[in-house]
């Protein structure tokens, strides 16, 4: 661990002089010391933390397509707040940023084609025109939004579609799978889609899929009054993107088997694990949690577990940066020694991701109508979280206990629908390490 840090430190010092900064790569095992003579699994965490722009650096320009639902269900308070939120978001942007506004109801209208934000008044006037009525052609809206992004596509900009909707997509392709297919494709183009669901009628699976596949953000706007806050925090994040096209490759050593990646999409082929992140935000850690199977080892021996290599587009220097790191495991006879050496931070993160996974399973059970089994899963999850929280004295895990206990009280048909939206948002934000919205 220490050597690793020093290597990174040196790297940071060397490059730091020339550039605004580099992302921090932090590779660590949950249990760097394993009990010898036993085949076991442990967690490998690859953490990436975005650097902070220094004051001299101009933040990267953004290229945003606001895709706003103006279907009939948005009428009243919702559309008013949505307009307010959009205008508030515009206020944060500058003349180098590119904005387009797409509205959709039964059909799609490119209200403001992609343009540099030099005339905020015109943009505000356009937003104020939006009024609600009609159905929800969500897929068409996103398609047109992405096309507007492409008009000024530049890898040195933050390219993002921000979708606000309150209803079920009911015109054009409208299944989560179809939308996910589009999301996956957009991710390859370095366009991510942030999905904001408003009220209690939107299809959260569809929005979560779209955000997940394109590695955007997802948030649940329970009350229209929250719209401005959520928009603000989304734009605050968009403006702090420091790295894009983050490719993480984990090459496991001979004999080490990658089991699964928790919370993120990953390609696992043999010994190689491949994960792509759309972006890193300033001073915010994103990680991938890989479960690895390590064969039995002899006491006192060190074994290389994996080599991690990362490359990403540095938004400050406009260069492609490369980072790499190797992590090893040692074996001991003493169980106490192994436990003592545990990396608490990694363990807590890993336990959280496992708990999210269990929560997802329980949610799926409840969706399938198996309420009893779901209840059992939620309860067990809460119990094991409580135990781990005590063991690692983690307030994060203890707080998650409460969330799972809350779930057990919301399984009734009348409560589940509303609860589910918040729960999916929570799962999403935990597995993708989004900034907590309430923090803003």
């Amino acid at each position, binding site marked *: 661990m220490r050597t690793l840090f020093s290597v990174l430190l040196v790297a940071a010092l060397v490059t730091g002089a020339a550039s605004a900064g580099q992302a921090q790569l932090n590779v660590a095992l949950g249990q760097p010391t394993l009990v010898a003579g036993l085949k076991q699994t442990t967690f490998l965490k690859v953490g990436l933390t975005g650097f902070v722009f220094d004051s001299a650096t101009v933040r990267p320009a953004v290229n945003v397509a606001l895709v706003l639902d103006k279907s009939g269900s948005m009428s009243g308070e919702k559309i008013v707040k949505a307009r307010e939120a959009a205008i508030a978001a515009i206020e944060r942007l500058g003349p180098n940023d590119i904005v387009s506004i797409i509205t959709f109801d039964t059909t799609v209208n490119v209200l403001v084609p992609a343009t540099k934000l030099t005339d905020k008044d015109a943009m505000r006037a356009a937003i104020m025109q939006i009024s609600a009525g009609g159905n929800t*052609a969500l897929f068409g809206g996103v*398609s047109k939004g992405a096309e507007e992004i492409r008009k000024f596509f530049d890898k040195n900009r933050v390219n993002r579609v921000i979708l606000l909707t309150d209803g079920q997509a009911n015109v*054009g392709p409208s299944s989560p799978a179809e939308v996910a297919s589009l999301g996956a494709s*957009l991710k*390859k183009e370095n366009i991510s889609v942030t999905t904001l669901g408003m009220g209690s009628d939107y299809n959260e699976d569809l929005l979560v899929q779209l955000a997940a596949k394109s590695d955007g953000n997802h948030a649940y706007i329970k009350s229209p009054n929250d719209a401005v806050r959520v928009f603000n925090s989304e734009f605050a994040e968009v403006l702090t993107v420091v790295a894009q096209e983050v490719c993480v490759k984990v090459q496991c050593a001979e004999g080490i088997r990658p089991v699964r990646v928790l919370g993120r999409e990953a*390609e*696992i082929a043999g010994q190689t694990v491949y994960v*792509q992140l759309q972006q890193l935000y300033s001073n915010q850690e994103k990680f991938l949690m890989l479960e690895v199977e390590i064969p039995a080892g002899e006491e006192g021996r060190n074994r290389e577990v994996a080599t991690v290599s990362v490359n990403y587009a540095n938004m400050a220097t406009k260069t492609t940066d490369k980072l790499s790191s190797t992590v090893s495991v040692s074996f001991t006879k003493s169980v106490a020694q192994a436990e003592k050496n545990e990396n608490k931070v990694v363990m807590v993160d890993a336990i959280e991701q496992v708990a999210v996974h269990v929560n997802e399973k329980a949610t799926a059970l409840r969706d399938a109508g198996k309420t009893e089994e779901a209840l059992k899963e939620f309860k067990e999850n809460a119990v094991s979280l409580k135990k781990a929280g005590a063991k690692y004295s983690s307030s994060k895990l203890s707080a998650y206990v409460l969330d799972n206990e809350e779930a057990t009280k919301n399984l009734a048909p009348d409560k589940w629908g509303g609860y589910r939206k918040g729960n999916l948002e929570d799962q999403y934000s935990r597995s993708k390490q989004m900034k907590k919205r309430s923090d803003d």
Partner: protein
Amino acid sequence: MKRRQFIIFLLIVVTPLALIGWLGWRVTRDEQDVLRHRTAELLASQLKENDKTIASLLQENQRKLTALTELSTYDADALRQLTRSTPLARQVFLLDQKGGVLHPPVLGAMLESERDFLRRTRRLLLDKDLIHAPSGESKTGVGSQGWHVWYWENGLNLIFWRRLENGQTIGVELEPGRLVADIIARLPETDPKSGGPASSIALIDSNGGQVYRWGLHSPEANELPRASVALSAPLHSWHLDYFLSGAQFDSSLQSSTLLNLGAVLTISAIALLALAFYFFREHSREALEAAQRVNFVNQVSHELKTPLTNIRMYAELLDERLPDDSADSASPVRRYLGVIVSESQRLSRLIANVLTFAQQQKNALSLYRKPASADEVIRATLEHFRPAFESKSVDVKLDADADAVVQIDPDALGQIIANLFSNVEKYGASGGMMFIESRQSGGRITIVVADCGPGIPDSESQRLFKPFERLSNKLTDGVTGTGIGLTIARELARLHGGDLILEKSESGARFKLWIESGTPSEMESRQATVERAIAPATAVSPDLNIMKEPQ
């Protein structure tokens, strides 16, 4: 008369109106058909433009994929990197010459997504469709590459395939959502400010589901598209539908048509009414004028009659009082007197004819029967004509055998015979001969008057008895000629229950007249009801006998 006018009015106004209306309706209906057809064609051509847009997107994709699939090596890493970096691609795969799967590495370490790919394409890969498809076959391919359409899950999926030089086949399964999104991105948006008729175009997939729609018109669930065009291959199971706001389209078509038709009908109606009114006015004016003329002639004739009668009477009285010594017919005084008498008789006949004709026109012609002998009437009439015939050297031969006294109107009979004699005098005198034959059998009296003049051609025989046109200005002119003589003669004969006809003869004209003599009782009744407006103007008129010599 009212009724007839009304029917004529109907014919003049309503018939052409109905005709114009019907024709107009036909024309406008045809026009509508043409318009509808043209509209459909126009709409279809618009749809084809959109199809071209989509087709060009696919061609572009094909070019892109052709370039992208040109790799230096075709190993797992390279192919995975291709899948990873190509937004269009859901999965890249490689087949050997026999269609066996080289990538994804079935026997090696596979990604979860690759396993999914093999699961969903098992059928396709087992059937080796991509290998057996001869290059350039139905699959819109150029050379050894092309599209393969494959239905799975949500419907149509596209695979781009390309034969490599070593006989292997590289394939790219397109990201279905991406394909649709790209198509949508190329197609127009809905501009709420756009003018024109409310229309919309919908892209429909192979399941009949709407993929995308643009335009301001929201079609009803069961609304039929005005035009529909299938997309070009490989998306040929999809189609574009053009919807046009039905109410708007039809009403604009209908209302303009109806408006046109209505305008035409209204204008025609006004024109026809004006025309009909004009003709009606002309007709009534002329009828009134004609009536006034007839009236005038009538009155003049009446006014002429009395002085003429006096002239005749005194001329005859003078003739009687001439001393017998001057009985020499060669004496100029007697000769002059004869001319006066014969000319005034002639004028009397003329006036009688006019007045009779006027009566006939009023349908007020009637008989005044009294006991009389037909032969007597013939002889009396002949006596009047004697000077005229003599001066024209017409030899008269009378074969009279109808001297029984029966109930007839001697004045009417005299007028008939006078008209026949007058005819001979005018047209048949050149023959120098006139035969008169009278017979009586039962109640019927038959009289034949024939001459040896030029005769009358058969073709004229019918027109002979027709009067000149009643409403024409010739009415007054005709009186001076003989235009109404035969008409009146025939009318009077028919009133007597007989007739007057022109018989065929070898030379000259031969008229045959017959009348029925009425019974006394019939005569009584007639006399009671009939009021004669005109006194007979013949010499044998009893009125003459009553006339007193003026003081």
